[in-house]
């Protein structure tokens, strides 16, 4: 029996090749898209799970409100981990990490700048699963001036030599001994290491300072102890340890501070949820977002649904063709359930073919998808014991979903009716229209989503930031220069160089913050300002605009105790007529207070990403480390200017590598995650629309075929070709317009929600919705009219004779 069914199914597939192709192609593309999204999601969900203690590890971070400023930071105070272990028996281990932006490391002639550098406690390897190839994890980072490298890095510095006990020199010349080589870092980790150096080397001693946060603290809880249990005890812990220091700093007791709205809390994040759920300031790396996992899952389901709907629609539209067979089979003694089985078997066979095609598609397109998503996804059907059963389940489920409606629809035909040829193919057309409307509604939502994402990304890239980030080359590690001013003057002598300024930070990077209060107020209220330090030329180099006053100048010797604020800072501090007023940086005692004179106010500029509101900022003169040297390249030859700057660098510091980036590239990295998701989103939106159109195309073909006779008669009666095209397209136009009405509110809801991620955002006005409607209608009409025109220009005689 089943052989008989399969024979019929295969012969039908071959007989109606175009129809079969549309069905299989649609399903295959849908399934392939789904598989890739699933691989992506699986990878995203696997972050940090390779750690054996993954379920016991928590990161403790700091939350609260200090001096009127919300703090949500991934870092925590230095003594936190150790104290937690001492205080609570359920905390079995802790380790701290502190990243270093970059570290210049030398071994003999091999000098490299290492970006993935971490200071780490010796307990690191008790917490995280980092397999050793050489060395002893127990002792590797126990002593000061020891390092542990990854295989890759060991190879880079030492080639085939044994790295153990070799001496490497850090930038300041300090020798560090290699005490271990570990496996390379897995891609699915929330931070990526190349080299660990012992925290003991920093000589911090036992600084019991509870208000400074600069370490990433990870703790291991006893098996089975829920994180919430410990978290509940942390408020008392804070009061006990941080309370006294807060009193010293803010001049009020912990309890009093709490009454005035000050909060200072430690919270725990499960290690495995960091990658998708943590969006704090100062993250080790930009994290992904669980929202995207949801969005992509929904897209995967929708794409598959659209493909299944194609199958349903085309099968029921073709019911006239199959109805005769149904009638005969019933006459020959088949009952309904046998027919249902037959049609389900057919759709499962078709799905099986589609899945095989989908596997091929995935193999072909996975590399491109990987480069799009920045992943290293791969398929392993035979290594994963779940893969094959999952595929078989997919075949059955998709086959049953896609085949269910047609099977019941077709098998319920009355033999008398179908054998008399009374069936006109309009059966189920109401549902069919509904399904097409549904398909297009989904597609239009995806369309609008794509437009909004791109609109917003374009907006954040083009919005005037209040400074000019184009053509700015930023030299990193500018501290390597001994004669900074001579170097700068050398550069400025070149007419192509429009400006340069030594700074400790540049827009787009993380900014530190400090507490200030305005002079002359008796209120204990203090305010947190983001701070940076620059030389005299920063405003000129970055093309910042002054609101009032002036920027630092060499003529004013007192500028070393001057500050330039931004407008937000003036507003926060509540100073009217600010130039000449002073702000105080409180010390431990009144004698240690330092006051700065406000010499100017800058117009607000976006020194951080557009996700955030502009924070209050204070700029000081030459107070910090000169980490960066942004150089503005004027009009003309950029490549030439870059090589000129490089040659100057070589002249001044021949033994240090010249490293730089362009500010606009660097700043755009702030939107990398949105950019990437936006691209993936677009690809799948296009796929969804494509599959929907494939179905529409097939449906239009059948509608046209069904109405061949009607069209023949109309033509004989004098209808024009355009008239017939309009006649045939009208129905579909109606559907697409209806789909828009459904899609708009949905899309509006989702997209305004997504835009909340940005403090500065576009308003998804009617234009975008209208554009999506026009695009969908245009695509649908092209698809439909292709068929309509074919029928409309055909000779009516042929159409009428065939009856």
């Amino acid at each position, binding site marked *: 029996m089943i052989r*008989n069914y399969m024979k019929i199914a295969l012969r039908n597939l071959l007989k109606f090749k175009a129809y079969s192709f549309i069905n299989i192609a649609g399903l295959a593309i849908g399934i392939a898209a789904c598989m890739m999204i699933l691989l992506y999601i699986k990878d995203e969900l696997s972050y940090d799970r390779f750690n054996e203690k993954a379920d016991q590890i928590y990161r403790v971070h700091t939350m609260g409100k200090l001096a009127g400023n919300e703090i949500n930071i991934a870092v925590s105070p230095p003594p936190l981990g150790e104290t937690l272990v001492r205080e609570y028996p359920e905390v079995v281990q802790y380790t701290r990490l502190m990243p270093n932006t970059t570290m210049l490391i030398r071994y003999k002639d091999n000098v490299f700048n290492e970006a993935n550098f971490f200071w780490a406690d010796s307990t690191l390897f008790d917490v995280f699963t980092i397999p050793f190839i050489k060395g002893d994890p127990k002792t590797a980072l126990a002593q000061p001036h020891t390092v542990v490298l990854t295989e890759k890095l060991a190879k880079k510095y030492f080639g085939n030599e044994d790295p153990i006990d070799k001496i490497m020199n850090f930038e300041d010349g300090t020798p560090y001994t290699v005490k271990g080589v570990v496996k390379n870092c897995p891609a699915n980790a929330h931070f990526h290491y190349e080299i660990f150096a012992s925290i003991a080397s920093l000589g911090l001693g036992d600084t019991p300072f509870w208000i400074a946060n600069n370490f990433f603290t990870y703790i291991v809880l006893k098996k089975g102890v829920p994180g919430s249990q410990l978290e509940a005890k942390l408020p008392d812990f804070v009061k006990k340890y941080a309370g006294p220091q807060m009193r010293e700093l803010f001049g009020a007791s912990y309890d009093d501070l709490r009454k005035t709205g000050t909060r200072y809390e430690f919270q725990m994040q499960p290690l495995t949820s960091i990658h998708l759920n943590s969006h704090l300031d100062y993250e080790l790396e930009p994290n992904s977002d669980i929202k995207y996992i949801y969005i992509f899952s929904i897209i995967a389901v929708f794409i598959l649904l659209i493909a299944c709907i194609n199958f349903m629609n085309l099968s029921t539209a073709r019911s006239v063709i199959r109805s*005769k*067979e149904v009638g005969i*089979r*019933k006459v*020959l*003694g088949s*009952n309904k359930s046998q027919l249902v089985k037959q049609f389900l078997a057919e759709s499962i066979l078709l799905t099986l073919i589609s899945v095989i095609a989908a596997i091929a598609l995935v193999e072909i397109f996975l590399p491109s998808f990987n480069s799009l998503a920045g992943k290293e996804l791969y398929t392993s059907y035979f290594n994963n014991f779940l893969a094959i059963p999952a595929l078989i389940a997919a075949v059955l489920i998709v086959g049953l979903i896609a085949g269910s409606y047609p099977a019941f629809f077709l098998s319920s035909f009355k033999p008398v009716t179908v054998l008399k040829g009374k069936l006109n193919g309009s059966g189920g057309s109401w549902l069919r229209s509904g399904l097409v409307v549904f398909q297009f509604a989904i597609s239009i939502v995806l369309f609008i989503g794509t437009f909004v994402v791109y609109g917003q990304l374009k907006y954040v890239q083009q919005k005037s930031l209040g400074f000019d980030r184009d053509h700015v080359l930023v030299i990193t590690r500018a501290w390597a220069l001994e004669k900074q001013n001579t170097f700068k003057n050398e550069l400025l002598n070149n007419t192509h160089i429009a400006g340069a300024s030594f700074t400790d930070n540049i827009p787009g990077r993380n900014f530190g913050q400090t507490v200030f209060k305005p002079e002359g107020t008796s209120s204990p209220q203090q305010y947190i300002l983001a701070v940076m330090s620059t030389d005299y030329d920063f405003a000129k180099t970055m093309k910042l605009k002054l609101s009032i006053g002036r920027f630092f100048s060499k003529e004013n010797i007192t500028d070393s105790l001057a500050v330039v604020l931004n407008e937000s800072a003036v507003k926060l501090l509540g100073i009217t007529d600010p130039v000449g007023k002073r702000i105080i940086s409180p010390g431990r005692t009144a004698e240690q207070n330092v006051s700065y004179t406000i010499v100017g106010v800058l117009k607000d500029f976006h020194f951080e990403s557009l996700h955030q509101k502009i924070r209050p900022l204070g700029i000081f003169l030459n107070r910090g480390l000169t980490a960066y040297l942004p150089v503005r390249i004027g009009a003309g030859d950029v490549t030439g200017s870059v090589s000129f700057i490089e040659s100057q660098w070589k002249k001044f510091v021949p033994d240090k590598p010249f490293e730089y980036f362009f500010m606009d590239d660097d700043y755009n990295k702030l939107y990398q995650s949105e950019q990437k998701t936006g691209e993936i989103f677009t690809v799948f939106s296009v796929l969804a629309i494509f599959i929907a159109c494939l179905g529409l195309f097939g449906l239009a073909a059948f509608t046209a075929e069904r109405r061949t006779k009607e069209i023949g008669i109309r033509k004989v009666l004098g209808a024009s070709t355009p008239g017939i095209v309009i006649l045939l397209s009208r129905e579909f136009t109606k559907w697409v317009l209806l789909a828009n009405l459904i899609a708009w509110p949905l899309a509006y809801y989702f997209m305004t929600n997504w835009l909340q991620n940005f403090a500065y955002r576009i308003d998804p006005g009617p234009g975008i919705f209208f554009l999506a409607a026009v695009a969908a209608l245009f695509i649908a009409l092209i698809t439909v009219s292709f068929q309509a025109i074919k029928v409309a220009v055909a000779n009516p005689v042929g159409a009428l004779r065939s009856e």
Partner: protein
Amino acid sequence: MIQLKNIEKYYNNKSVKTFVLRKINLEVKEGEFISVMGPSGSGKSTLLHILGMLDTASSGEYYFLDEQVHTMPEKRLTGLHKAFIGFVFQQYHLIDELTVYENLETPLLYQKIKSSERQSMVAEILDRFNIVAKKDLFPFQLSGGQQQLVAIARAIIAKPKLILADEPTGNLHSDQGKEIMELLRSLNEKGTTIIQVTHSEDNAAYGKRILKLRDGWIEN
């Protein structure tokens, strides 16, 4: 074998009953060959469909081999019909996607007959109808007469007690038609009960009894 008592068939059309069959009383004995005649729309085909259990009467009683068909659930009905009744249509109604052999095999599949037995039954019927050479051809590769031959072979392959033929020669020219009628007659002589619907007096003459329908009523 068959007993119809007061069978009526009507459709409700905007609360007006449109009758197709009126008070049909009919008894068919085993081994009969009945020709049903009448103008278009007189209800011939509907009567045949009701007899073949493809359609149900609106009222009245139908006994088939002493079983009450009019109260029977759908499942039993399918079972009864597939065990005892063979159908022949004017349009042949072979399954286009199946070969002659596979078309012949299909009713046996629905009766759950074993593969080996099926093979011999199909081989026997191919031989009897002299169409062995055509067994791997598809319906569209055959002439009308040959298709109807296959259709009849398919109707009788499971050895039904009753054959219902709806204008079996309607689409054939007279030579082929005659051949088919002879075939039906010889089947009848071997004991199969046949009820045919026909327009042609010549073909009706093959039957042993002629039933005339007009506007749904049996004419006496």
